[in-house]
């Protein structure tokens, strides 16, 4: 497997500029001769499709939703970072770059992160021009707030619905191109496989989720914007349909999968209430700006929150990390919460949470100010739990949320399969081993609006234009394999539901490869996953027909891929014999329980090559070189 990051030479601040000059361009009149497939219409996919449509490419976009507006980007609450320095508080492109590399625990590629920080400025401008109703001050200028892992206020927000407003902006831009005829959008179409011809990505096979029809689409390049894989844990903050299928299918066709074990646990979610729990709901991290996290000092204290006097509360984040306090990064806040619950200090009926208390903020700023900032989050919390955060502290607990790992891509966001690109959460490039809050929206839109529309031209201008007919042997073979897989899922006709398998896999992964990982636990999981997968293929029951709208079949295909993917995730966690960011190996901790990196042996991205189901995958490395940021131990004390 060839892994050339293709990072341009020169000083980091000039790389992107230099690269834009060095790139080959596609002449405006020729752009319409190129077909580009984009899979997924979240922030990355919708912004990419809209922008490439504007540029004149012939874009075919696909989503499995009924509308492009449903993608899970819509649920992002807190905000989007940009180094605008509108607050005059010392922010700069370099500081955002530095914070992101440090927040990622020095496991990301410097050049990509620097470009992200540079582009962050343009994203805000673009979104404002589209009419995205960001929060504003009384003078009419944009407002900011601070977020975990940063000491400046650089986060732009639209109440607690920033993802919704940014996605609607991108969706509207996309629909404009659909109306203009530059983008052909297929809704309710799920990508089932990538078509690779002579080692080059040339199309996709889809399933029409209404008719069950299998169709092939060919193109000059394929862009995957298909999000992350947190649902491997079954319970996560992701939407129910989020899955690994598109990126996993690409991986099976030769694309390297980088750092699959980097999965982020979000510290502020609502704890589960029972066995039937279908997903976990995130409460924006921005709440940590004004909320104080605590547990009773006395394990086993069963009094109501309001009856516990100040002196008997342990504001543990403020105690451990005096300078960052409640705003310490996600991985640290999550592990400390788990520690509190594990040691019996948990709160709530099931003693499975910690308090996030707004009492002091309400006393200081008034109820109206708090309602202005977090009103919709408080309402959402009350709907789910029946409790009002104005009256009694929220209960929160960590949950799987975002996956930093993804398809390996070079500086142009192309995978090692020529013509196959990955953008947004689907790639691995910018967040290292841990993502800072309000950086996912930034990356999705940076990739979609400003990076891929240029870098794809650099690819297209270099390869010969050669159309692939839809009856080409490679197309037909891929189609046949897709049909065979669906038929075999239907044919099992066993006794267990798809969900029951997914729940079992999720529990196994949460215990072995969740917030904490150990050699013993991972080795055990690597024995059990193949057994569970074998049982799945022997005993799963998918009712109905493949030639129809069949939600059980949709789920079955996705869970089948999770069953394969889970294994490489554990291999990655096992072979990364260090702790870094969100990857926390119990064998590698400092004296006070923090992650201990091993830069000498692990300052690289691990990139996995597929060798067959049940075969051990091959591990490759891309060395990470830090020329602009000094490797140091993260300290938020």
């Amino acid at each position, binding site marked *: 497997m060839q892994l050339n990051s293709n990072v341009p030479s020169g000083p980091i601040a000039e790389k992107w500029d230099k690269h834009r000059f060095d790139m080959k361009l596609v002449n405006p009149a020729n752009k319409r001769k190129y077909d580009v497939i984009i899979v997924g219409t979240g922030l990355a996919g919708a912004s990419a499709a809209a922008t490439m449509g504007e540029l004149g490419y012939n874009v075919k976009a696909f989503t499995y939703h009924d*509308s492009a507006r449903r993608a899970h980007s819509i649920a992002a609450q807190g905000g989007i970072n940009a180094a605008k320095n*509108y607050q005059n508080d010392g922010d700069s492109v370099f500081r955002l770059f530095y914070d992101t590399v440090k927040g990622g625990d020095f496991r990301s590629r410097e050049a990509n992160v620097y470009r992200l920080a540079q582009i962050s400025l343009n994203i805000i401008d673009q979104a404002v021009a589209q*009419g995205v109703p960001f929060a504003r001050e009384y003078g009419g200028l944009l407002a900011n707030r601070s977020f975990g892992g940063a000491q400046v206020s650089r986060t732009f927000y639209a109440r607690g619905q920033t993802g919704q407003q940014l996605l609607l902006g991108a969706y509207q831009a996309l629909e*404009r191109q659909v109306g203009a005829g530059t983008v052909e959008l297929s809704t309710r179409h799920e990508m089932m496989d990538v078509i690779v011809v002579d080692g080059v990505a040339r199309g996709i096979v889809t399933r029409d989720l209404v008719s069950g029809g299998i169709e092939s689409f060919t193109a000059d390049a394929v862009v995957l914007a298909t999000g992350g894989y947190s649902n491997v844990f079954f319970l996560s903050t992701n939407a129910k349909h989020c899955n690994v299928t598109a990126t996993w299918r690409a991986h099976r066709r030769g694309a390297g999968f980088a750092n699959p074990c980097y999965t982020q646990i979000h510290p502020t979610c609502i704890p589960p*209430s029972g066995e039937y729990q279908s997903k976990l709901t995130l409460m924006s991290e921005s709440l940590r700006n004004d909320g104080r996290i605590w547990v009773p000092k006395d394990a086993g204290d069963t009094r109501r929150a309001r009856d516990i006097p100040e002196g008997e509360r342990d504001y543990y984040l403020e105690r451990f990390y005096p300078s960052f306090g409640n705003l310490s990064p996600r991985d640290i806040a999550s592990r400390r919460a788990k520690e509190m619950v594990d040691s019996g200090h948990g709160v709530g009926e099931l003693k499975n949470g910690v308090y996030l208390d707004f009492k002091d903020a309400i006393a200081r700023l008034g109820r109206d100010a708090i309602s202005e900032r977090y009103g919709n989050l408080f309402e959402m919390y009350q709907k789910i739990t029946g409790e009002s955060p104005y009256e009694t502290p929220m209960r929160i607990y960590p949950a799987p949320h975002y996956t930093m790992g993804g398809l390996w891509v070079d500086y142009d966001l192309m995978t090692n399969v020529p013509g196959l690109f990955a953008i947004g959460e689907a790639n691995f490039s910018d967040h290292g081993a841990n993502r800072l809050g309000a950086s996912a929206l930034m990356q999705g839109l940076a990739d979609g609006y*400003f990076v891929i529309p240029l870098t794809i031209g650099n690819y297209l201008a270099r390869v010969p234009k050669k159309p692939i007919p839809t009856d080409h042997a490679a197309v037909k073979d891929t189609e046949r394999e897709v049909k065979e897989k669906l038929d075999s899922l239907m044919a099992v006709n066993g006794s267990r*539901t798809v969900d029951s398998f997914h729940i079992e896999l999720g529990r196994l992964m949460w215990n072995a490869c969740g917030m904490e990982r150990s050699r013993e636990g991972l080795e055990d999981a690597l024995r059990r996953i193949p057994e569970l997968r074998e049982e799945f293929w022997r005993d799963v029951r998918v009712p*109905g027909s493949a030639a129809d709208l069949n939600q*059980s079949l949709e789920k079955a295909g996705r869970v089948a891929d999770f069953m394969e993917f889970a294994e490489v995730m554990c291999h990655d966690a096992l072979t990364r014999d260090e702790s870094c960011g969100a990857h926390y190996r119990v064998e590698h901790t400092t004296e006070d329980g923090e992650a201990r990196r091993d830069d000498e042996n692990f300052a690289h991205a691990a990139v996995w090559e597929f060798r067959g189901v049940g075969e051990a995958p091959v591990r490759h490395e891309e060395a990470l070189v830090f020329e602009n940021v000094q490797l140091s131990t993260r300290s938020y004390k």
Partner: protein
Amino acid sequence: MKLTLHVWRQSGPNDPGRHERYEADDVSEHMSFLEMLDVVNERLVGQGEEPIAFEHDCREGICGSCGMMINGVPHGPKTLTTACQLHMRSFRDGDEIWIDPWRATAFPVLKDLVVDRSGFDRIIASGGYISVRTGSAPDGNAIPVPKDNADAAFDAATCIGCGACVAACPNASAMLFTSAKVAHLAQVPQGQAERWDRVLAMVDRHDAEGFGNCTNHGACQTACPKGISIDYIAQLNRDLIRATLRARPVEAGRDA
């Protein structure tokens, strides 16, 4: 608690469809409405039957995928709440619950509770945007937007496109949906250049999709899980009249 469900089952667009009765035992008050349906579906699959098809995704009230008539009310009995955010503490032991898909000519049923809402996308594609080419935007702070305008635009922009307004309306009108986008973009300075063309195009598309017109019943704003106000329809109508009557710039050099 124990519940009796009467759920609309329809195998496809051409099947006439009918209600089927299901008993839901062991329902916890902490379950969401969709989790209650999950439990029913798990049992159906266990019995070798096809589960009830319904749309859902984020399950936190923001994606707009879910939506069904629950006892004749879009998204059920709790105001400002989507079906996924509705919890079973809103029901009582022994309740009978009737569950139907959205009913509207412009939202044909695809299967069970799943309908085709693509008309909404086509309304947006007809003009529900500000035309701004990527990269051509001025600095974000170049155009101050008074906080009141920004807040008002935000209130309109929170529409999740679920279709409850259409399902609630006796005319199956999508005016609340259309007006929310018109009002969002008409209230920010960036949206002024296309303001009049936008409202004309979107209303044309709305009508062409087969949605009915608004006769001020107000059922839509009651049903809306995001509290979108019917005042936006009044605002749309004002803009529509001004757009219709407005003097267009003289087009020079045209042949007579």
